[in-house]
């Protein structure tokens, strides 16, 4: 639990701009997240020291307390030693460790995390859509280690048509989570044994959690046909 003295950040900003209560119409899409640039995949692992400034500058210096900062601890070093350039970035956000890894090696890194680093429990797998980025999807894995009582987040970037290696062979629980990510984002997981929609009907068109899928959008044809609702809404 963060209990730092300098956490008045948000409340300090609120009196200044009470009019900001009305949210931007774009549904929070306006401001692309600065610390997650599509990092050049060829970044060599060696110049670790040069990395923190590279990750930091795009952010305005105003809110320095919270938010991602570059991370370089023993764990990250071990990962970099093992996988070298496949570990693209490492940061810590709200004291939570995040590793951005190469998509192609996601399953291998997951297996290594489970067996060698003892992150034996996959608590969550999901995705985030950043449509303005070159590779629009973040695949996010939240892992937990019973032995170390630690969490680690793995992230991989994927373009709209790129396939992501399935981690279902590493953790059986990933089966439904990957199906959900496929259902909601249309991300295809390579090697998944039974990739199909899970929450929405099989015939549904579109992927609702993509940012370009408006909240009022529906597969009106499906609704009309299957539910007999004329308007489709």
């Amino acid at each position: 639990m963060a209990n730092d003295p300098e956490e008045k950040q948000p409340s300090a900003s609120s009196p200044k701009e009470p009019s900001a209560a009305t949210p931007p119409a774009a549904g929070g899409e306006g401001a692309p997240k600065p610390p997650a640039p599509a990092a050049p995949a060829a970044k060599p692992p060696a110049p670790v020291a040069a990395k923190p400034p590279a990750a930091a500058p795009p952010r305005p210096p105003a809110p320095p307390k919270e938010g991602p900062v570059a991370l370089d601890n023993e764990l990250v070093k071990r990962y970099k030693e093992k996988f070298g350039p496949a570990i693209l970035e490492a940061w810590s956000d709200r004291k939570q460790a995040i590793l951005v890894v190469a998509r192609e090696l996601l399953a291998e890194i997951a297996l290594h995390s489970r067996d060698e680093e003892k992150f034996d429990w996959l608590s969550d797998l999901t995705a985030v859509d950043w449509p303005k980025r070159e590779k629009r999807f973040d695949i996010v894995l939240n892992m937990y280690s019973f032995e170390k009582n630690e969490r680690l987040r793995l992230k991989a970037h994927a373009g709209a048509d790129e396939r992501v290696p399935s981690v279902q062979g590493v953790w059986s629980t990933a089966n439904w989570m990957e199906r959900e990510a496929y259902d909601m984002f249309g991300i295809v997981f390579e090697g998944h044994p039974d990739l199909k929609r899970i929450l929405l009907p099989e015939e549904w068109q579109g992927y609702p959690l993509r940012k370009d899928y408006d909240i009022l959008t529906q597969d009106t044809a499906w609704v009309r046909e299957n539910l007999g609702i004329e308007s489709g809404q």
Partner: protein
Amino acid sequence: MADQRTPVATHADQTVLGADEIILNMGPQHPSTHGVLRVKLRLDGEKVIGSECIIGYLHRGVEKIAEHRTYQQFAPYVDRMDYVAAVSNGLGYCEAVEKLLGAEAPPRARVIRTILTELQRIASHLFWLGTHALDIGALTPLFYCLREREEILKIFEKYCGARLTTHAFRIGGLQYEAYDTLEKDVERFCKPFDKRVDEYEALLTGNRIWVGRTKGIGILTAKEAIDYGASGPVLRGSGVKWDIRKAMPYAAYDQYKFEIPTGKNGDTFDRYIVRLEEMRQSRLICLQAIENIPAGPIMGKVGKVLKPPPGEVYHSIEAPKGELGYYIVSDATTQPYRVRIRPPSFINLEAFDKMIRGHLVADVVAIIGTLDIVLGEVDR
């Protein structure tokens, strides 16, 4: 374990059925599926040789809605996921946003949150016990359990005016001060409650029918439970001593003494024992908490317009059903960029196929019951 990872292939159209095999649909309108869960069973006589859960009938797109509401506006929506444990959902969400903001609720608010959340755990387990026993054929426990649950709901009603979808907490603390007799009410409920649990045990634990229907049914070993991502009583019933309240304390749990009950065999009976013991432990936490509720403010300084700095957070709590996690991404606007909810029921249900294979049709209801799923949370 390779064979378990092969596709289930229970669709009638995907599989060639043997001469004795049939496909049976259970649900979505079946009283013991606790909502709109449809289970497709592949049967060899009365034996289940494959299954597939078909879910989504209650899908409301909660995660999409979250992206179009402000942080505060979204808080009531989370109550509608696990609607028998709304207080826990609210706690998880409020704490996740607080973490994202770098704020924290004041001590008084945290203790009151803990009391209400533990009462909610008892209420949720009571509801589970009543319905689970009803599914298996014991009618009486339902009346006993709902009698006690009613007391808890009355406390919620007195506190915030709502019984089920309470929206009891706010980001940064509490909206309502504890009412005058909260401690007394909690004490009046908790003091005799261990005797009540003894009553349930007298009805069930030694009951030959109960034991026959639950012992050895739906076994999940510790290794399998971890592999399937199970959490909460399902994981602990398999002997893994892990509880987020202890491992990564939140609210005020670090101040109280309690045990983490575990099972040995990972069967339905063990999970039943674990949940009963958890009710006793929750009672102890409540009794400790009302002893000393610190004075002070109930709302932290978070401001009226919440604009968390850009970044992301994953925060999880031990909900009655397991790990309830919130993964929230902020882009420094008043609305979350992405809210991902890790629902314990959804992920525990995934182990259903593993647990049911080789058992009889009658055990399907026992296993659905022991997983303690709420479809509002499975489908979101």
